[in-house]
């Protein structure tokens, strides 16, 4: 079986589990958790860089998944993207509501990282990553950096400007120009 049809099958399976959870199937929901919680916890840790806060965010995220499973639409998003996005947004909300006490240190993150590729990671499509990375590489370094920092650390414009010691307008301009080039590059394939 080729990598991509295996990926498609695993995605279809995860989408089906979300559908069952939407109908109130707890076992399906637990299966979703078992398949995806390590990824989603990694996402929360990346944003919050604090184990306790990340555990709380992870709980909130899965309660949201359970409650909004009926709104998942496999035609609009891949199931992993949908789940990871919920975790990321939940972690960002928690970080902002708790003030800026928790600052991300890249070293701490590296310590937590495990290098083996898990079943879930094998499930993610590598082709998309190749195009995105090629296009990110084509940006100016400062454009690339603000976009990546925004994604991985979950900073708002204001927080980015503060962190970089750069005027807000300048940061916005870097981000928007970077995103414009990124879109053009990715649309060209």
């Amino acid at each position, binding site marked *: 079986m080729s990598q991509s049809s295996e990926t498609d099958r695993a995605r279809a399976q995860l989408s089906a589990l979300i559908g069952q959870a939407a109908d109130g199937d707890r076992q399906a929901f637990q299966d979703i958790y078992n398949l995806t919680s390590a990824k989603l916890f990694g996402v929360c840790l990346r944003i919050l860089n604090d184990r306790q806060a990340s555990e709380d965010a992870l709980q909130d995220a899965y*309660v949201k998944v359970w409650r909004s499973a009926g709104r998942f639409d496999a035609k609009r998003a891949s199931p992993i993207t949908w789940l990871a996005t919920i975790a990321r947004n939940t972690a960002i909300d928690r970080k902002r509501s708790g003030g800026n006490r928790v600052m991300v240190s890249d070293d701490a993150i590296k310590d937590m990282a495990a290098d083996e590729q898990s079943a879930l990671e094998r499930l993610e499509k590598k082709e998309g990553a190749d195009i995105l990375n090629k296009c990110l590489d084509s940006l100016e370094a400062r454009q690339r950096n603000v976009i990546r920092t925004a994604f991985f650390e979950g900073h708002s414009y204001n927080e980015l400007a503060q962190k970089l010691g750069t005027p807000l307008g300048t940061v916005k301009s870097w981000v928007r120009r970077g*995103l414009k080039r990124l879109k053009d590059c990715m649309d060209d394939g």
Partner: protein
Amino acid sequence: MVEETEPLKDDEALAAELVLGLLDGDEKARALRVQLSDPKFAQTVDEWNARIDPLFQEIKEVEPVASVWDGIESRLDGGSSSSSVVVQLKRWRMGAIVSGALAACLALALIVGPGTLAPTSEPRSVAVAQLTGNIEGLVLAVSYNPETAEMRVDVDGMPETDTAPEIWVVDQDGVFRSLGQIGRDGVSEMTVPSDHREFITSAATLQLTMEPPSETPHAKPTGEPVAMGKITII
């Protein structure tokens, strides 16, 4: 070479900024409202999500401790899934109808003896609705008792905003009739204004908008609905 000079079109920029999490406060609330009300913008948001999605692959997996799942599971017991509120209430009504019918049968059996069945009167109905929208995790569970005109709204997942959630009944005529503002979190109980009670039928929807805080219901909404749900009579 013009690539450096052109900024993104406004909607493209707003969608990308929403996806990256760059927006805060009112800007974010506005973008979420547009996402709910404008399918084209919602699609632009989906496209940006798909574009940056591969970045998630760079995030390493970390196994959470087992107690996290226990915490989630305990919150499912106390809470309710999007579909299960209505299911549970339906079961409860069904139980009430069945036990009511059973009691009536037994009473009848005592009077006329076995072998005869008379129609039993239906217990009074209850209106329920589940309101959701594009704001992740925002769920409102509403129940309404027409006998007392009491409405109970259970809110979960409301983001922080300067505005207050206001609930509206919208009949087939499309007119928004305010039932008043509710709490941001947990259960709010209120009496539905007498001139709006007739609109709480299965033909209507309940909708939630974010409005300037006010002691009295507004005449009409200022923003797009952030959550909505059909009324079910059970």
